[in-house]
């Protein structure tokens, strides 16, 4: 699926995740967040940057690992991205939906 978000042409898969991380910009992240009904604060960005950093290093993500990362506690993670913290934050961060386990 192709979409124009924040003035940028980007590719999304059928679940709304970016298929090419290089198309991600801060504005794209903000636009996706808005669709998810989330207004991004510094605390959100801290998590998003952490996720992107892990993604670039090919490190698989899980909720508990994030909770232990000193970036956010699991409770705060749920407060920031209610319904499905890891799924929604990954979508905003422009990285693939975490497969978590395989």
């Amino acid at each position: 699926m192709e979409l124009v978000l924040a003035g940028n042409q980007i590719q999304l898969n059928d679940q709304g995740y970016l298929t090419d991380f290089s198309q991600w910009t801060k504005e794209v992240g903000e636009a996706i967040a808005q669709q998810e009904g989330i207004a991004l604060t510094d605390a959100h960005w801290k998590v998003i940057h952490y996720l992107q950093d892990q993604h670039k290093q090919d490190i698989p993500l899980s909720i508990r690992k994030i909770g232990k990362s000193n970036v956010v506690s699991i409770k705060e993670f749920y407060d920031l991205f209610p319904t499905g913290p890891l799924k929604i934050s990954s979508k905003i961060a422009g990285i693939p939906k975490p497969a978590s386990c395989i």
Partner: protein
Amino acid sequence: MKRLLILGAGTAGTMMANHLRPKLSVTDWEIVMVDQEETHYYQPGFLFLPFDIYTPEQVKKPIKSPLPRVVTLIQATIDKVVPESNEVWLQNGDHLHYDILIIATGTQIAPDEVEGMMGEGWQKDVFDFYTYEGSLALRDKLRTWNGGKLVVHISEMPIKCPVAPLEFAFLADSFFHHKGMRDHVEITFVTPLEGAFTKPKATEALNYLLEEKGVHIVGDFNIEHVDNEKRVIVDYAGKEVPYDLLVTVPPNMGSDMVERSGIGDEMNFIPTNKATLQSKVKENIFALGDATNLPASKAGSVAHFEAEILTENIMLFIEGQPLKESFDGHANCFIETGHNKALLIDFNYTQEPVEGVFPLPGVGPLSLLKESRVNHLGKMAFRWVYWHMLLKGRPIPFVSANMKEAGKILETIE
């Protein structure tokens, strides 16, 4: 004399010793292994112990028995790895020097990571089956349990053998059916994933099977605590699932010694190059099996494929040659579905579990992603294959370390 030191004499460590011993000259290289256990457990058997399908004797052997003769096995608890001085310290105070280190310390359950999991109900109405003790205690419980709400639960991913909890649910369905009490048992499968499995293709097939067997599924559930008094599990979003008998897979973490060494990630897994299996800690440290942070399944079959590739890379490393980037994340596992049937899935880093036949294109005899009796026999034969072929580092007939694509209907993961 140079020393190759292997930490852990479980599935992966044993395979490495068996692969490397014949390749390394006995006069130049000493192979030393360290493990705290006296027993080698056949962990896939822990799935069958609770249902009295296997006896305790069938899942254990002396830890030395599958090892080659010319290795030294030290029975001790590892304190830590000290990469700066190429040493491993043991809790008995000994320091071992190494030239090459292989970390194969696996993963263990950490029930104390979830509040209340090891509360009053632990091993009374809250059980794990990922340890020998847990699996036996659950067997005793199931022998006399009168029925009620059975909750089969995964705390979080990654866990070793990610399909084992599903298989447990299927086998429970079959077990209570045969006992003539299926009507008195409500089975619910609770998972942090959206559905039965992580890969959409297999999830579809497995969700269908769960439904067919009358197993309810609760997805997107990230456990926050176990309430022993009310007998409910509660997730971070406040969702509750009641149980009379909770069979849980606690969080899985790497060995404590990884934490003590300060060389792992938050879950004590070893950062490892996913194609070469060289650790990111130091160039003479390698890792395989459940101990790594690779985005591959934590399974004996994966360790088997990794062992072939790591053996080649260790030989290249010794010769000073560049390492091969050849591991593709290949995994294949039987999924026991109860009533003497099973299915088989085969996948890697980029290919989804596929429909088709395995291992011979067009012939089988094992069918991928379809329930069959032949697959069940395959799963049962796996115990023999494990002790006699897998641990010995012998290739499984027709199965190669990299995934074959012929005979399968492939779908690539984005």
